């Protein structure tokens, strides 16, 4: 230990005797390490920001969407059929162990009016109270959420997001105000906390959430099939049946026009547009998907060879794509930074070689008073390594400073990365050993007589 301290002191005094040169020599390492640190911190920050924006949709999120409806051989794309029901939601809650919770969702897009102001929010949702927990939106700035009773009674209450609140109320508290949606007056009972944009870039704060039944039956339900606009076309687009009338027998006698008018049949469709599901944990997402698929196939009475009439969307796929592209970019930048570290190492080697030549006399003297070849080797190696470690240390500081600047001026998300610092220290140590070895070895091979005589 004492020997180690003595060697360190010796190296420090040798480096201090030529401060300017030591600083210039280590500059390559400083820049290299600083680059690595900044890259890693920005990369880490970006990746964490991505994680957070994924979380904003809700952690461990799954969406069950109805499959495509086909009419007369014309497919209308995913989400157009009416295969999902609130009973499906209950079944998922009851029977899927890998599912934390599930909520039915109906969506629509309509004008919202308050006094002289009006807007069309990005999202209007009808759902059950547990939806908020599933999508991590339980926290309200003001007011309270609706409850099961509101859903059962289709009460005309709603929660709104901050963007919508700003648009309609211009900073005033929205609580207790009555807004109109499709001419239905609704009382605002809660203000949702800000969420930001989701992965798709949709503003999740320009939102109105109301009980499922209110949206379904009071608002969208006025045109019962209008809930999902694309789905709504189903009734009118099916022109083939008029061209090619079915030949099969009807079960019931055909009612006359006057009968239809006299005894209108109440149509209360209960299908939902989407089921919001939260898996119990991230590793269980796949299991949850499997369980839901099995359950819904059973409930929808699909034969083994039949295609599913629903579709499960998994956020992790999107996340993976984003992550992959950002990590490959980061790798490229890291590689460039490592190249600059190697260049810095060559600089160290160059200067150490000069230093060995310059100090030939000193080496000869040290040998004359009893330094062995390996003592000389260690001395110069320690100097090179120390130089690199100092460079690495300065690089870490400068890199941290640079990423703080990036954070301050560009507002990029930056995260302190401890592994990057550890790696920087290890790499600069290895660079010191790798590039300091040759000069040190050269010094240790000197002949003491020649070295002493060297002018």
């Amino acid at each position, binding site marked *: 230990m004492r020997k180690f301290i003595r060697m360190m002191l010796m190296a420090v005094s040798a480096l201090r*005797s030529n401060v300017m040169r030591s600083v210039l020599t280590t500059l390559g390492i400083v820049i290299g390490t600083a680059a690595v640190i900044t890259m890693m911190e920005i990369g880490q920050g970006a990746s964490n920001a991505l994680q957070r924006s994924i979380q904003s949709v809700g952690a461990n999120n799954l969406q069950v969407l109805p499959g495509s409806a086909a009419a007369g051989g014309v497919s209308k794309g995913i989400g157009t059929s009416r295969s999902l029901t609130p009973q499906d939601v209950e079944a998922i809650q009851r029977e899927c162990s890998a599912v934390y919770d599930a909520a039915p969702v109906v969506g629509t897009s309509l004008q919202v009016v308050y006094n002289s102001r009006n807007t069309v929010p990005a999202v209007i949702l009808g759902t059950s109270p547990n939806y908020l927990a599933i999508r991590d939106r339980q926290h309200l700035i003001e007011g309270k959420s609706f409850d099961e009773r509101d859903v059962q009674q289709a009460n005309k209450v709603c929660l709104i997001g901050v963007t919508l609140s700003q648009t309609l109320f211009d900073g005033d508290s929205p609580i207790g105000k009555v807004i109109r949606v499709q001419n239905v007056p609704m009382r605002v009972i809660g203000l949702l906390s800000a969420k930001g944009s989701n992965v798709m870039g949709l503003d999740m704060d320009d939102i109105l959430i109301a009980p499922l039944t209110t949206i379904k039956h009071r608002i969208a339900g006025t045109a019962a099939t209008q809930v999902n606009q694309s789905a709504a076309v189903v009734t009118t687009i099916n022109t083939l049946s008029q061209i090619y009338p079915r030949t099969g027998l009807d079960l019931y006698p055909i009612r006359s026009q006057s009968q239809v008018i006299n005894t209108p049949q109440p149509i209360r469709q209960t299908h939902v547009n989407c089921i919001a599901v939260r898996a119990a944990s991230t590793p269980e997402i796949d299991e949850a998907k499997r369980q839901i698929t099995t359950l819904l196939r059973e409930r929808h009475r699909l034969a083994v060879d039949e295609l599913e009439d629903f579709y499960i969307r998994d956020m992790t796929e999107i996340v993976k794509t984003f992550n992959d592209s950002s990590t490959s970019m980061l790798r490229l930048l890291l590689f460039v930074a490592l190249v600059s570290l190697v260049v810095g190492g060559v600089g160290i080697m160059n200067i150490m070689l000069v230093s060995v030549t310059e100090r030939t006399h000193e080496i*000869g003297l040290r040998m004359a008073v009893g330094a062995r070849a390996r003592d000389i080797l260690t001395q110069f190696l320690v100097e090179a390594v120390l130089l690199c470690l100092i460079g690495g240390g300065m690089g870490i500081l400068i890199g941290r400073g640079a990423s703080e600047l990036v954070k301050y001026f560009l507002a990029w998300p930056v995260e302190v990365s401890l592994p990057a610092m550890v790696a920087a220290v290890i790499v600069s140590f290895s660079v010191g050993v790798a590039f300091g070895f040759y000069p040190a070895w050269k010094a240790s091979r000197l002949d003491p007589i020649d070295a002493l005589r060297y002018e």
Partner: protein
Amino acid sequence: MDAIRLEDVTKTYYRGEIEIPVLRGVSLAIERGEMVALMGASGSGKSTLLNLLGCLDQSSSGRYWLDGVDVSALNRDQLALIRNQKIGFCFQNFNLLPRTSALQNVLMPLSYSYGRLDELASRERAEHLLERVGLKERMDHEPSQLSGGQQQRVAIARALIAQPPVLLADEPTGALDSKTSAEILALFGQLHREEGLTIILVTHEGEVAEHAQRTIHMRDGKIEHDTPTAQLAGAIATRIEG
């Protein structure tokens, strides 16, 4: 026991195909506590001989015992150890480490010793030695702040730090004026008398050689003559006559 004994030592350098014999059979015995001057024209082989004596180089043939150890058979690392523990060097141009205090210069050889003294004891010994050579007040000065004579004193203190039995000095007064030279030589004489050091001085100057008990003249790689110094001879003669 002899401090130094050489038996028919030769040294030949090779420059390509050409052989250059520098020492052609040197036999020599120096007793412990002797002070010997080594003289000769340049090219006579005295520097080579000094390098051999200082274990910086090894002979081409012949044998060399230093303090009873057969040095001719040792490897590089063992030679380094011998240099560290048995030999002190003084050079014509002092060879102090620049930008390093006198004290640190004196301590330097100890960092290569085995069975090292602890920090405090080393320091004490170095301070004592500097006091001995008359530089107590200048321990923290760097070589550039010291005169030539003072630098040589630091070098002598450094040579003695590991308490070697043999001190080799290669033209120690070559770079000094006559007054300082005299002081340095007096210091050598004092060390020789008081510590019983074996001292070998390489020199050009006759006056320097006069301080020694014995003078060895080299010529063409051989010892030309090896005589007790005139003074000493005179003293002996007087004693015989008286």
